[in-house]
């Protein structure tokens, strides 16, 4: 019917109106969705953008991943020791050698609930069971993994809350002993590794710190009164 009648003027106007309404509706929905995705409540949605994990425009980054890594490396300079560590352990990983893929495989193996931050340099897992952490330290409330632009694992932070002073003290002692055996001797101890020192009602921290030219670790138990008792482990790579 190539030679059929042209559409009536009213029909063309209706088509145009429908198209305009569809486009307008799309715009409103897009504005609403994108706007919401950039609010505090909606920002987690950005993580679901395949391969991004952040604002696709990149404007929500105060620092690029490379700049963030440079900042981390620069900030660690005052905490460098003179000797190299025998190894650079962090949970079951090796800083500088383990990669994002290794951590992802570990997360999958233990079916952990983890989420990346907006620029993808950090992944935080909540409620990590003891089996995934090794040792006898019990469940961790959170474990965060930090990556450099080459996807190397460069830092790990582990936190446990609600421990009793005796548990926290024992855990710090155990971790410190393990680190001494694997990396080398500790550099300093702050506070006293004694349950009484961390008794409820006090504000106090007991910590053991390891400083090497290529590795830094800090294991601590902090009694913070109403905020509770927290055990914390920090492991960081220092590029030398």
């Amino acid at each position, binding site marked *: 019917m190539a030679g059929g009648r042209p559409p009536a003027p009213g029909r063309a106007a209706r088509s145009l109106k429908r*198209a305009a309404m569809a486009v307008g509706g799309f715009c409103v929905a*897009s504005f609403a969705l994108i706007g919401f995705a950039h609010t505090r409540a909606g920002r987690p949605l950005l993580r679901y953008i395949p391969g991004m994990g952040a604002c696709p425009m990149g*404007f929500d980054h105060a620092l690029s991943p490379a700049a963030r890594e440079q900042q*981390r490396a620069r900030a660690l300079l005052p905490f460098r020791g003179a000797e190299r560590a025998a190894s650079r352990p962090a949970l079951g990983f090796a800083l500088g050698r383990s990669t994002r893929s290794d951590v992802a495989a570990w997360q999958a193996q233990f079916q952990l609930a983890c989420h990346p931050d907006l620029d993808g340099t950090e992944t935080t897992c909540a409620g990590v069971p003891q089996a995934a952490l090794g040792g006898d330290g019990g469940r961790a409330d959170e474990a965060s993994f930090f990556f450099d632009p080459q996807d190397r694992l460069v830092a790990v932070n582990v936190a446990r809350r609600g421990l009793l002073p005796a548990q926290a003290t024992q855990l710090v002692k155990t971790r410190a002993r393990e680190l001494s055996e694997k990396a080398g001797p500790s550099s300093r101890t702050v506070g006293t590794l004694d349950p009484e020192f961390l008794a409820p009602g006090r504000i106090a921290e007991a*910590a053991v710190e390891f400083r090497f030219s290529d590795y830094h670790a800090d294991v601590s138990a902090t009694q913070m009164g109403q*905020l509770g008792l927290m055990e914390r482990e920090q492991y960081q790579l220092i590029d030398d």
Partner: protein
Amino acid sequence: MNHVLSNILRLAAAGTLLTAMLACSSSSSSTGSGGTTSSSSASTGSGGSCTTQMYAKYGPAAFTTVTDDLVKTAAADPQIGHYFAALTTTAEVTAFEASLDQFIVGVYGGPNDYTGPDMATAHKGLHITSADYTYFVGLIVKDLESNGVSDSDVTDCFAPPITAAAFEASIVGM
């Protein structure tokens, strides 16, 4: 008609892009002010009576040392270091340390020379979490202990202002 539709679609795409950019830029500018951890003494808890005696007891040099150590320790912390990422030059670090020192000195009984923004303003857009705040308090405690502050002074005199719920509320989630 195609021309009209094409223009409408272009307009829609541009609007969508602009919305995204504005939203992202707004977020960027707010997170770009990292490093501000100073606060208004007016918003801190009062703590025990010994709180305001700490400056006289330990002196200005001790306060400066603890402040400098705190900024270094916090910047090197894997969990909260990014809040200090904006401090990229020595001058910026020095200025920030001076401002923080002024605030802390004021809280603990020294001259009230702090002229920076109030807590909520200083931390607006940083989206500091309760967990991060707890980490920061832990670093303060560690630095106080490392610099020879007695256990009882940490618990009774230094801790009350920074562990007060109202003070934390003025920082967390801003």
